[in-house]
């Protein structure tokens, strides 16, 4: 049995799809030190796997604390370097300053300075050369060419802002609030060649960024079940067994909007002899009325056998919302008057949106020697991230390490340790990351206090 579980564990970790994801940021230095793996049965596990509602959240599992308080050393240093009362003149936030660097600002957004940055990922500082001729325009970004995405880039997530309910005997009735957004941008081949290969802008050619964005929110009355359907060898006193969970949602969308189309410009002939014509020709879908309706569900399974544990869960399966009253408009840039023109294409028509399927697969092995190994694969709506980590506890001390595969499909590494003195523990975790506009990794040091 246990051999099978270990095999399944390895299969989950190895065969899971390798795509980007969120859930790699945590305020818990323990988790960061393990490359993002969480050894407790809360957080992502309960969010994405409904079967975990039936599994006890063992306080002693892996030395899990009751709660954790982050020590935001990075925030303290950031506020020292950038006093709040001087933000208006701070070069970092003042575009009129010669030291203003938009890449630094974007890096700050992508990598909030909660924890101390042991090594900041350097922003590209190479020169950019433009070669301009009557019929030529070359942009040579130099080393910064590596920042130009080859494929679609963007941001998005599918989250549940609210999940309340009550029940008995494993059954549960409640209401869930959902929010999903996704913005994807793709450079067309021509523009990518200009930016990535320093190819010259050519005459009578269109250069486009193709955009596709959607945002929708609403709530969903939910009925669900979670329970232990098979008991393991440990009997009732243990957590051993097979747990199943499921939930059926009746989605009632509050509102949604979707925009698709290109933005860019078309060159004249010669390139610099005529003014390029701006291009924006998008289609905008908006709901006139709330209550886009649809059905979808969550399923999950957890298997616990002594120190082994493995689970899989998926959310919003088949969640397609039908919006009965939608307005479809065309928005385009009009050179005359330098304005945007809206044209009503059709109104009061039906349209459909989907919620992405999100999922988690996790596995953990708690050895009797104080060693715990775990891993998870999480997709929160825009790709998948993988975490694998290990913790070794010896007396009051703990040593941790882990690896993860991040949204850029880059390997990241975590390591750290901690000491527990009675009910209080102090943990330090280091984590490499690529959450910035830089080809190089940064290293964050997370610190937190845990209360047991």
């Amino acid at each position, binding site marked *: 049995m246990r051999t099978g579980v270990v095999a399944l564990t390895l299969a989950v970790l190895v065969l899971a799809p390798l795509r980007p994801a969120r859930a790699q940021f945590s305020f818990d230095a323990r988790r960061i030190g393990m490359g993002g793996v969480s050894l407790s049965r809360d957080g992502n596990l309960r969010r994405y796997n409904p079967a975990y509602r039936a599994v006890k959240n063992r306080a002693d599992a892996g030395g899990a604390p009751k709660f954790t308080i982050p020590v935001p050393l990075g925030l303290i240093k950031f506020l020292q370097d950038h006093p709040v009362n001087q933000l208006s003149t701070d070069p970092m936030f003042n575009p009129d300053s*010669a*030291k203003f660097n938009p890449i630094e600002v974007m890096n700050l957004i992508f990598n909030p300075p909660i924890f101390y940055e042991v090594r900041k990922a350097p922003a*590209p*500082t190479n020169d*950019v*050369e433009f070669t*301009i001729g*009557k019929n030529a325009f070359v*942009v040579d*970004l130099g080393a910064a060419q590596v920042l130009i995405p080859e494929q679609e880039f963007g941001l998005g997530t599918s989250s549940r802002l609210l999940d309340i309910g009550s029940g008995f005997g494993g059954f549960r009735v409640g209401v869930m609030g959902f929010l999903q957004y996704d913005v994807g941008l793709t450079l067309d081949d021509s523009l990518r060649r200009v930016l990535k290969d320093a190819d010259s802008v050519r005459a009578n050619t269109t250069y486009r960024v193709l955009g596709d964005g959607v945002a929708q929110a609403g709530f969903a009355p939910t009925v669900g079940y979670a329970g232990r359907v098979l008991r393991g060898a440990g009997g009732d006193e243990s957590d051993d067994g097979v747990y199943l969970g499921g939930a059926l949602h009746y989605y009632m969308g509050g509102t949604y909007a979707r925009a698709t189309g290109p933005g860019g410009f078309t060159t004249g002939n010669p390139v610099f002899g005529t003014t390029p014509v701006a291009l924006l020709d998008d289609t905008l879908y908006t709901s006139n009325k709330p209550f886009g309706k649809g059905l979808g569900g969550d399923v999950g399974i957890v298997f616990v056998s002594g120190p082994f544990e493995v689970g899989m869960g998926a959310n919003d399966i088949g969640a397609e919302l039908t919006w009965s009253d939608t307005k479809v408009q065309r928005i385009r840039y009009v050179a005359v008057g330098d304005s945007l023109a809206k044209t009503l294409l059709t109104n009061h028509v039906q349209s459909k949106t989907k919620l992405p399927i999100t999922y988690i697969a996790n596995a953990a092995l708690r050895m009797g020697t104080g060693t715990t190994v775990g891993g998870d694969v999480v997709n929160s709506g825009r790709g998948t991230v993988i975490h694998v980590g290990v913790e070794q506890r010896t007396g009051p001390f703990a040593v941790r390490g882990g690896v993860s595969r991040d949204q850029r499909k880059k390997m990241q590494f975590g390591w750290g340790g901690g000491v527990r003195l009675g009910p209080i523990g102090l943990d330090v975790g280091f984590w490499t990351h690529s959450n910035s506009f830089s080809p190089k990794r940064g290293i964050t040091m997370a610190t937190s206090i845990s209360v047991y």
Partner: protein
Amino acid sequence: MKALRVSLLVAVAACGEGRAIFNIDAYSFMAGTGKDTIPYLIPPATTASASQVQKINLPPGFGSSVVDTVRITNGRANLVNTGGTGFIGLQLYVAADSLGTYNAGALALNIPETGVTGSQTVPVTITGDLSAGLNSVFTKPTVWLRLAATGRNPNATPVTGRMILTALMIRVVVKDKIF
């Protein structure tokens, strides 16, 4: 135009604290239009000048940028003299509009006189930093250049010929402060 500007700003943003460098092939705007040639006819014992004015379009969106240096990195011309003996100098004027290039303050570069005589072709190298006081002109989306040939004839026979531009590459280095 807005889309082009946004694209450029995104591209320049990638330079971080680096510099944006514009290599402007001014000759490409003049070649084949006749503006790359300045005929000259200098009567005996006089001075004379002739010039050509050219508009150069630059990428928009750099109005608030600070130009560090403007330099001609590759400039060449041939003085194709067809008669007489004299001296030909070159001047480059820069301004935000065509009329402005005729102001004395628009003088960006002065190339010393080169002697010409009889029927000969004399190559001239055009190089050097442009006057720093005119740097800000290169942050505008349109720059006007006036290339002037000034002649001096101390002799008794007219000096005739033409100056033919063969290369004029201007390198503009912009400090940060792009937005």
